[in-house]
């Protein structure tokens, strides 16, 4: 499996060009179970990329971390979900210097979640690389109640916070790391288009 190809859309929609080694430089790498394959390919292309890399693996399967250990990163830590990764990620960011690279691989949710936090800490956009691997699901923010619904796979979908039926837009907030969901039946309540699977 390789980097997902998405249909070209509006400028706001993030694109994920894939990971390219910048060599032996200070780095933070974050991947989920699908994305860790991209880290392996990155290290296979240039093993020196791991010399100063601190890896956070978002998974509930500890066996995956053992396999990544073979790549000899500077450190590796396994966390169960996105939120659980935040303290470790922020600790890494707080001591990182200008020139540090962030490599993200996995779901759109993971890439958006950590990109937003990194940008908020001052990491320049140009220092973030990303590769999409795994299922096509999105982190969606309801523009009405501001609640975030994880792993949205259909359009429209139901906001997990306020219950409105939301249209899945390509409009993306870099600051929050989420796509924007807008009420689909505001004009005529109940008039909802047929539910479809989100396409790449």
């Amino acid at each position, binding site marked *: 499996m390789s980097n997902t190809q998405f249909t070209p859309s509006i400028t706001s929609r993030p694109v994920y060009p894939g990971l390219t080694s910048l060599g032996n430089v200070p780095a933070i790498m974050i991947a989920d179970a699908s994305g860790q394959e991209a880290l392996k390919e990155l290290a296979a292309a240039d093993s020196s990329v791991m010399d100063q890399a601190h890896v956070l693996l978002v998974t509930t399967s500890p066996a995956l971390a053992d396999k990544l250990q073979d790549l000899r990163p500077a450190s590796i830590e396994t966390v169960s979900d996105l939120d659980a990764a935040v303290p470790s990620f922020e600790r890494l960011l707080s001591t990182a*210097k*200008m020139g540090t690279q962030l490599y993200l691989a996995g779901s759109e949710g993971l890439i958006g979640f950590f990109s937003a936090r990194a940008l908020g*800490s*001052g990491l*320049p956009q140009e220092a973030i690389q990303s590769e999409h691997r795994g299922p096509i699901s999105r982190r969606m923010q309801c523009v009405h109640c501001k609640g975030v619904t994880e792993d949205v796979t259909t359009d429209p979908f139901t906001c997990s916070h306020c219950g409105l039926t939301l249209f899945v837009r390509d409009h993306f907030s870099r600051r929050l790391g989420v796509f924007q969901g807008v009420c689909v039946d505001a004009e005529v309540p109940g008039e909802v288009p047929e539910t479809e699977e989100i396409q790449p």
Partner: protein
Amino acid sequence: MISKLNLKVVEIEDLSPLVKRFRFEDPDKAALPVFSGGAHVSVEMPDGEMLRHNSYSLISDPYDATGYEIAVRREDQGRGGSKFMHEKVAVGDILKLSMPANLFQLDLRAKKHVLIGGGIGITPFLSQMRQLEMHGQAYELHYATHSREEAAGLALLPEAAHIHVHISEDGSRMDLGAMLADQPLGCHVYTCGPEGLIAAVAEQAAMLGWPATSVHSEAFTAPPPGAPFEVTIASTGQVVPVAANQSLLEALEAASVVVDYSCRGGGCGRCETTVTSCDGDIEHNDFWLSKEERAEKKKIMPCMSRFKGLALVLDL
């Protein structure tokens, strides 16, 4: 076109043998427009037959509307603008200044700012420093100069742990590698001074993996003198002579050919003029046109650039 302020010179102070500080105020003590750190003004200098303009960074507090201050280094090899300021301007004189404009603004999204001034290149940072202090933003300033005697900036810099003075004569040269290697995420670096210093900072930052968007510079200079030449105005056939110590823009203005302008230092792009034909070489002294545009000889920045050759016709 640019609106002008008629301001009175109220103070002239020697900061070093080569640098004088000038303070301007409104003759009726009216409040002046406030500005932002890094802004400059262009000063009109009526010197006999010649009307010259030079741009200078404002060094006073950006939020102080009572006056504007600039520091002028005397350049004996220049066209005579700085010499005019040093020799002909006296307290009480009224000079025409442009409204402040800023081509060297701080990026206010930065988590920290590193300001590096070489020689007279310290000037834009004097106002930026005050803005950063006012907003409580993290910064450090490095001032590099050859000798203590030439260090005009010393009189204007406070003594503080985040203000670093590097005097090469005393053996305390800047270590750019060490300065840039240890900066937190979100840091931006700004350089003003000789081109060599600007290039060295950019190179060091790139080597350490800083993206170009976090690296800023201003290589603001006065138009250089050169050999006299002529240009032809395409619409009228008028031939405009440009003297050795006059810029092309000044010569066009003297001949009543209207060209819009702002910075007069080759940085803002406002005076970009289309070349109708060029039989010779344009000496591009600006910081605006790209390498490709320079090679095409289709554009010229009359505030800074000159011409050598048989004929230059401008689309004016």
